[in-house]
C-alpha cells in the first residue's frame, strides 16, 4: 500500500528546504553587499578626513598626516567587489554601482596622495592599471597576479585599478588624459602608457624608483628593529 500523503508531505518539506536555501542565499548576498557598503562609507569618511587634515597642513607638520591609512581598506574593498561580481548572483546592478563608487574613491585617494607626495616628500609610486572583464582578457588576469605580487613586495607601490569599460566619466577622463588605448591590460606610470602584459621584471626595469622604495623600507625596518 502506497502512502501518497507521505510523498506529498515529503515533497513540501523538500520544497520548504529549497525555498529556505534560496532565501538564505539571498539574505547572505545582501549582507555581503551591506558589508562592502560599510567599508566604502568608512573609506569615504577617511578620505574626507584626510582632505580636511591636508587643508590644515600648513598648520600641521607632515608627521601628523598618516600616509598609509587607505591602502589596506581599498585593497580589502577591491577584493570583496571582485569576489562579489563573480559570486553574488542577483545583485549585479548594486555591485556595479559599488564598483563605480570604489573607482571614484581610488581617484580621490590618488589626488590626495599625489599632493602629499609633493608637500611631504613621500616616496610612494603610483600606477594606474586598466583592465577589462567584459571580454575574456587572460593577460589581465596574469597582470593582476603580477601587480598583487609587486604590492606585497613594495607596500608603498600604490596601484589604482580601473575597469576600462566601466561607465564612469572620471575613468573616461583618465583614459583621455593619458590616451590609453583599448589594448588591455594597460598601465600608466611616470606619465607613460604601457599596453599589454608586463612581467614583474618589465615593471621593475621601467620603474627604477621601485628599488629605492625597497631600500627606504628596508632602512626603516632596520631602524624600527
Amino acid at each position, binding site marked *: *500500500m*502506497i502512502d501518497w500523503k*507521505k*510523498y506529498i*508531505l*515529503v*515533497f513540501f*518539506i*523538500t520544497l520548504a*528546504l*529549497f525555498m529556505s*536555501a*534560496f532565501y*538564505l*542565499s539571498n539574505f*547572505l*548576498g545582501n549582507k*555581503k553587499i551591506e*558589508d562592502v557598503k560599510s567599508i566604502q562609507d568608512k573609506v569615504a569618511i577617511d578620505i574626507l578626513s584626510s582632505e580636511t587634515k591636508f587643508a590644515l597642513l600648513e598648520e600641521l607638520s607632515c608627521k601628523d598626516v598618516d600616509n598609509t591609512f587607505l591602502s589596506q581598506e581599498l585593497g*580589502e574593498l577591491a*577584493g*570583496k567587489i571582485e*569576489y562579489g561580481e563573480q*559570486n*553574488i*548572483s542577483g545583485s549585479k546592478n548594486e555591485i556595479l554601482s559599488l564598483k563605480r563608487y570604489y573607482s571614484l574613491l581610488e581617484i580621490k585617494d590618488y589626488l590626495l596622495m599625489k599632493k602629499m607626495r609633493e608637500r611631504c616628500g613621500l616616496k610612494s609610486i603610483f600606477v594606474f592599471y586598466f583592465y577589462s572583464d567584459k571580454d575574456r582578457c*587572460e593577460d589581465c*588576469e*596574469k597582470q593582476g*597576479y*603580477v601587480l*598583487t*605580487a609587486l604590492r606585497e613586495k613594495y607596500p608603498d607601490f600604490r596601484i589604482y585599478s580601473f575597469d576600462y569599460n566601466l561607465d564612469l566619466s572620471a575613468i573616461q577622463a583618465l583614459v583621455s588624459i593619458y590616451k590609453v588605448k583599448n589594448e588591455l591590460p594597460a598601465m600608466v606610470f611616470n606619465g607613460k602608457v604601457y599596453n599589454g602584459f608586463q*612581467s*614583474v621584471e618589465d615593471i621593475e626595469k621601467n620603474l627604477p624608483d621601485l628599488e629605492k622604495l625597497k631600500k627606504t623600507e628596508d632602512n626603516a625596518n632596520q631602524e624600527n628593529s
Partner: protein
Amino acid sequence: MIISSIIFVYFITFLAIFVQVFFLVTFLERKREIIRREEKIELGVYPSVTIVVPCWNEENTIQRTVLSLLDLDYPKEKLQLFLIDDGSTDNTLKVLKEFETYSNIKVFHKENGGKHTAVNLGLENNTNDFFGCLDADSFVHPEALKRIITYFDNPEVMAVAPSIIIHKPKNFVQYAQKAEYEMAVYIKKMLGFLDAIHVTPGPFSIFRKTVFDKIGNYRKAHNTEDMEIAYRMQSHRYKIEQCNDAYVYTVAPDTIKKLFKQRVRWIYGFINNTLDYKRLILRPKYGNFALFTIPSGVISISAALYLFTDNVGNIFNKGIEKFTQVSVTGLDFGFNLSHLNWFYMNTETSAILIFILFGLLIISMILGSQMANGRVRFSLNIFYFIAIYSVVAPFWLLKAVYNTVFSKTPSWR
C-alpha cells in the same frame, strides 16, 4: 552555466534531498518500532533452519565462519549447516572436512560454477522451513538467528535481512566502510518499514523455504544473486524485513583497489538487475520499491556523478588559476588570511543545498550508528567516508556504467 544544466542540477539536488527527507520522515513515524535487544531471548518455537556456506578458496576465513555458526544460540537439532566447496583450488575442502564430525554439518563438493550454483545445491538438499546463507568471509552474533526468527511471527514476512557490521576495521579504508555500513543499517531499516528492500545480503539473510518453491532458486544475476532474489520477491510483492539487531560481522576490503572492485560489481548488479526488472519502475502496484527504492538508487548515482564532475571542474579551474599565477609571479607558499573572512564563503543557493544534503547524510550516519551501537558516538569515520567516497565512488559508478554499456561483467575478485 547554461540554463538546462542549472535546471538539471536543481532537479537532481531536489530529488537527492527528497530521498533523505523521506527516510527521516519514515524514521520519525516508526522509531518506536525499532527495537534493539541486548539480552538473550527465548523463542516459543524453534523452527528448523538450514544455513548454507558457499566457499571458493576460503581456507583462511572459513573456520571462523563455521565456528560462529556453531556458536549460534539455537538448538543444534534445529540447525542444519551445509558447507559447500565450489571447486576451490586451495585447502578449503580439507578445512571443511574437519567439521564433518558434527552431526548437523554436511560437506558438499562440486565443480566451480559460481556462488549461486553452490547456494542452489544447498536449496536442492534443503528440507527445512527456513533457509539462509552465510558468506565465508562473515560470521554471526550468537543471538542473530533467534532475533531474525522473531520477525517470522508475522506470516506475511517472507525474508529477513540482518545488519552487517564491519569487523575490527584496521585502516582508513575500512573505517570509511564502517561509517557506510552503519548508515546502511538505518537505511535498510527504513526500507524495511516501506516494504522496499532491494537486496537480501549474502551474509545471513533468512528466507522461508516457500519463497524458492514458488519463485525458483537463485540466478547468476550479474554476480549479484542476493540482489536479484530481492527484486524477484518484490515483483511478487513478498514482504522483506530488516532485523536491525541481528548482527553479522564481515571483513571489509582493506585497500581502495579491492573496494573499487567490489563496488563495481555491486553497482553493475544494481544497474543490470534494474534493467532486467525495468517493467516494475514507477508502477504503483509494486509499492515503494518501484516508486522509491529504484528511482532513489538512480538518483544517487546521478547525484554522485554530478557532484564529481562539478568538483573536477572546480579543481581544474583552480589549478589553471594557480598555474597562471605561479607562471607569472613564481611560487608563493603564503596563505592569504584575509580570505578566511565569512564574506568569501560560498553562499550561493546550490552550495547551501549541498550543505543541507551533507547534513542529512550525516544525520543518517548518526542514526545508523545509534541503531548499530546502541548509542550516538561521534567518530572520524564519517570524514573518512566523505573523503574516500567523494573521490573514488564516482570512478566505480563510471566503471559500472561503462561495463554495462560494453557488456563486461565484473568478476568476483
